[in-house]
């Protein structure tokens, strides 16, 4: 915690030093004081934008995680499905999802839907991949015991493979939580007038670099807060289960 505070202070000092040393005008590189002023002055506008971005992120994260979990379970439960989709999952990770943002806007319009779709796309692959890996690598000694006890396929999945894969699922969800706000911002960037991404694009276009930085700082803070909440929840969930 203290180290984090020191790190932030050091970064702000470096930033201010860079502004002084380079002598760049504020529309190219505003200093931290200027950005803080703008943050305070535009707080209503930024807060409203942040609310939209946060809503898109949360809805997309929940849907993406749900889809990822469902896909991983289907792949683990039906081997042909798993064999068929496992390479597709890897290929899908090589697609720069951001490149899909314009087409999502084309398909889904300028409302919340394309932003949420962007978050879903970005979240669902790491969640599905992590859970699938966990489901396919159950602990050997426990598997032996369960087999000798006559556990069926479904009992094995429900009582052993899924609970044993929870730590891997948690890793996937953590990754998803980190990527999710980025997805929402990219979605807003490409189309629409609401949210922090749209605010940043508009600020950039009007040379209001200080507002752009202020929005960027809020994106980072939002992402960190989301990650902290989800990480704490996952840790508690895992600890209760003896992991």
């Amino acid at each position, binding site marked *: 915690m203290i180290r984090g505070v020191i790190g932030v202070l050091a970064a702000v000092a470096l930033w201010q030093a860079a502004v002084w040393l380079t002598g760049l005008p504020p529309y190219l590189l505003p200093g931290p004081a200027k950005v803080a002023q703008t943050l305070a002055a535009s707080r209503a506008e930024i807060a409203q934008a942040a609310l939209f971005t946060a809503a898109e992120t949360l809805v997309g994260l929940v849907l993406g995680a749900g889809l990822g979990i469902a896909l991983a379970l289907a792949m683990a439960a039906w081997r042909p499905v798993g064999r068929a989709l496992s390479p597709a999952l890897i290929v899908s990770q090589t697609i720069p999802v951001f490149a899909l943002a314009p087409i999502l806007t084309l398909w889904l319009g300028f409302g919340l839907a394309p932003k949420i779709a962007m978050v879903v796309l970005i979240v669902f692959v790491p969640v599905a991949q992590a859970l699938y890996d966990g489901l396919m690598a159950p*602990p*050997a*000694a*426990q598997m*032996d*015991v*369960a*087999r*000798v*006890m*006559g*556990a*069926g396929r479904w*009992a*094995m999945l429900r*009582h*052993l493979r899924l*609970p*044993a894969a*929870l730590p891997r699922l948690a890793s996937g969800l953590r990754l998803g939580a980190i990527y999710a706000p980025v997805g929402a911002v990219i979605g807003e960037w490409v189309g629409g007038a609401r949210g922090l991404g749209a605010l940043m694009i508009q600020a950039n276009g009007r040379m209001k670099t200080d507002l752009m930085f202020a929005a960027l700082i809020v994106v980072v803070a939002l992402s960190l807060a989301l990650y902290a909440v989800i990480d704490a929840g996952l840790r508690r969930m895992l600890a209760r*289960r*003896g*992991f």
Partner: protein
Amino acid sequence: MTRPTPAPASVGVSGEAPGLFGPLALRLAQGRVTCLLGASGVGKSTLLRLLAGLPTGVDFRGTVDSAPAALMGQDPGLFSWLTVAQNVALGARLRGERADPARIAALIDAVELTGLETRLPANLSGGQRQRVALARTLAEDRPLVLLDEPFSALDARLRLMTGDMAVRLLKGRTVLMVTHDPAEAARLGDRFLVMTPAGLAEIDAPPGEVPRRHDAPEVLAAQAGLTERLIA
């Protein structure tokens, strides 16, 4: 607790696994503890897994006569997210049956873990974890019990106590115990089989009911004899 029924007299494995072991015939002593000793990698666990109906990953050619079995290994294989009581009742959970709580409580008492029913395995000592696995094995109430080096991760004192407890509680069942430890075999085995790539050799066991005292002269002599065979 109900009186256990031993597995049929025919329980055993006969055949070969090219590259691992030559033709051999393993017969288990009905209602007795058969100790299987031998060097690492000679195929002892493969025989046990064949009897358990588990995948072995080897090319086995022959026949397996088995019976409903319960398994306990060096890794107790406890489910880390289930409590002690839930782990003991695991078989019922996996088969979708209802476990009898009174019977589970009696088994936990038999392995001296009363009071720890709601603990998770992470909060138990190594010896306590093996006793949970033992109670879980007893809860299965199977005529054939397969023990794969169940005590080798325990210190000398715990190994002695847990081994004696296991053999006492498993009395009347047909037991195959794979072990590396001649001292353990000499105390706990009604029969000794030493496995080499050439096959199985039976060594005479000392007289007396198991578990025997660790310091009885005939037990020490049997231990020396077994050690001799293993280093030969």
